[in-house]
């Protein structure tokens, strides 16, 4: 090993993800080919409770992860002894799940004398677009923009290189996926709220209910969705508008705000080669259309990885591990999981 040359990777890399609700494992060839992957969603379990986290998922990760990793390896025709390295999400996220994933990953690494990479979950999202063969347009060149829009994250980042990220803006209050979930809950829709709200919005008139478009037109790239949520609560309580109209207006407002923020981000980084959209909210067609419009005007592609690779998954973790290993970057076994771990704190090769 050594920072100058990087690892001569000739064996597969195991990736582990357990930072929030999903337990995931994946094994990638050194060139980034996906050999096998698995995601155990706890969504089904949660739906029973209406979006509630029984036992905060840490125990569920602990029960699920070792078996899942073994099954994924077996599907690739491999055992732990065939691996070249282990990469595990070590933050940001829920501390219980992070500890489970990081400790299991370190355990495998120690037992088989392998290098370990403590992967930043946000960096993994940021680098997903570089996974060979993932995007029909090909991987974007640095620098590109990442718009991460999920239940727990809402930020816009200039991806300037491995380990080199500049946060252009982030939410001042609620994440956008959280706003979707809470707006849906206010309208009595089942969890997860996003897809249900989108279906309801298709039957509504986005002009029928005036809802705020927070920070629209303001300089910079920050987001705010708390006021919009309160406005939805008010409209629902008032009872005069149909839920379909409120849903349509909410979705239109979110799409307009995200498009406005993306436009600013593209102005802040004129050399950006494209805008990558990741996170569960990237599945929303109105949001996608609005972002594609902004990208089109700026003359850059909007790149949306297939949904299963832009929501939480372990393929992105293994890939981030490979990128770091290639740059000679590994972590020590005393690396502690970090619930808060801003991208700006990372360093690269």
């Amino acid at each position, binding site marked *: 090993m050594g920072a100058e040359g990087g690892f001569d990777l000739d064996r597969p890399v195991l990736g582990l993800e357990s930072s929030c609700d999903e337990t995931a494992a994946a094994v990638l060839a050194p060139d980034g080919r996906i050999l096998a992957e698995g995601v155990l969603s706890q969504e089904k379990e949660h739906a029973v409770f209406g979006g509630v986290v*029984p036992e905060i998922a840490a125990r569920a990760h602990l029960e699920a992860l070792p078996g899942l990793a073994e099954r994924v390896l077996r599907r690739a025709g491999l055992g732990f002894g065939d691996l070249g390295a282990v990469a595990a999400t070590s933050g940001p996220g829920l501390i219980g799940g992070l500890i489970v994933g990081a400790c299991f990953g370190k355990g495998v690494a120690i037992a088989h004398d392998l290098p370990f990479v403590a992967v930043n979950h946000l960096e993994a999202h940021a680098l997903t677009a570089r996974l060979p063969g993932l995007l029909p347009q090909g991987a974007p060149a640095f620098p590109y923009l990442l718009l991460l829009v999920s239940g727990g994250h809402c930020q816009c980042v200039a991806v300037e290189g491995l380990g080199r990220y500049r946060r252009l803006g982030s939410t001042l209050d609620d994440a956008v996926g959280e706003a979707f979930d809470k707006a849906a809950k206010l309208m009595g829709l089942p969890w997860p709220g996003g897809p249900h709200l989108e279906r309801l919005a298709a039957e509504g008139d986005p002009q029928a209910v005036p809802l705020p478009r927070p920070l629209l037109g303001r300089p910079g790239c920050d987001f705010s969705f708390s006021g919009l949520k309160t406005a939805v609560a008010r409209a629902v309580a008032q009872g005069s508008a149909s839920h379909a109209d409120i849903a349509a207006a909410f979705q239109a407002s979110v799409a307009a705000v995200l498009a406005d923020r993306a436009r600013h981000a593209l102005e802040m980084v004129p050399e950006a080669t494209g805008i990558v959209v990741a996170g569960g909210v990237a599945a929303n067609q109105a949001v996608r259309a609005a972002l594609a419009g902004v990208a089109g005007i700026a003359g850059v592609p909007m790149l949306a990885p297939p949904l299963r690779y832009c929501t939480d998954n372990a393929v992105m973790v293994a890939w981030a591990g490979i990128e770091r290993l290639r740059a000679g970057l590994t972590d020590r076994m005393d690396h502690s999981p970090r619930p808060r771990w801003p991208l700006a704190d990372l360093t690269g090769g």
Partner: protein
Amino acid sequence: MPRTVALDLPDLSATHALAARLARLLRAGDAVLLEGPLGAGKSELARAVLRAAAGDPALEVPSPTFTLVQSYDLPAGPAHHFDLYRLDGPEGLAELGWEEAREGIVLVEWPERLGNERPEGALTVTLKPLAAEEARHVTLSGWDERLGALAA
């Protein structure tokens, strides 16, 4: 029976003024429980309290809904902003470091989920939206000896 004070907060600046008074009175071991429906302004109030207590109006205070807890180092000691919305009961609290957090300051949204863990001597703040957009009705209960200064 703890004393209760009711206030009308006509706008956001009144909410922020209440937050500033609350921030000045906070000390280690305090629990502030924030009640009210979705969109009532619980996070807004918690954010204003944390910013005032930190003396930093630009302090980043993201919603803790997803992470369940966010921690801050304040001049008055460590503070923890919990959102128990996604919990179905107090069983998961230990995993969130509840006992350790109680040594510092805790601000708790959706405290209904605390069950038997609901701290004695807590200040309960109940927010209710009023007709005007930023207006809130707030009831403050508990904190008998400090309630006067808080309501002033």
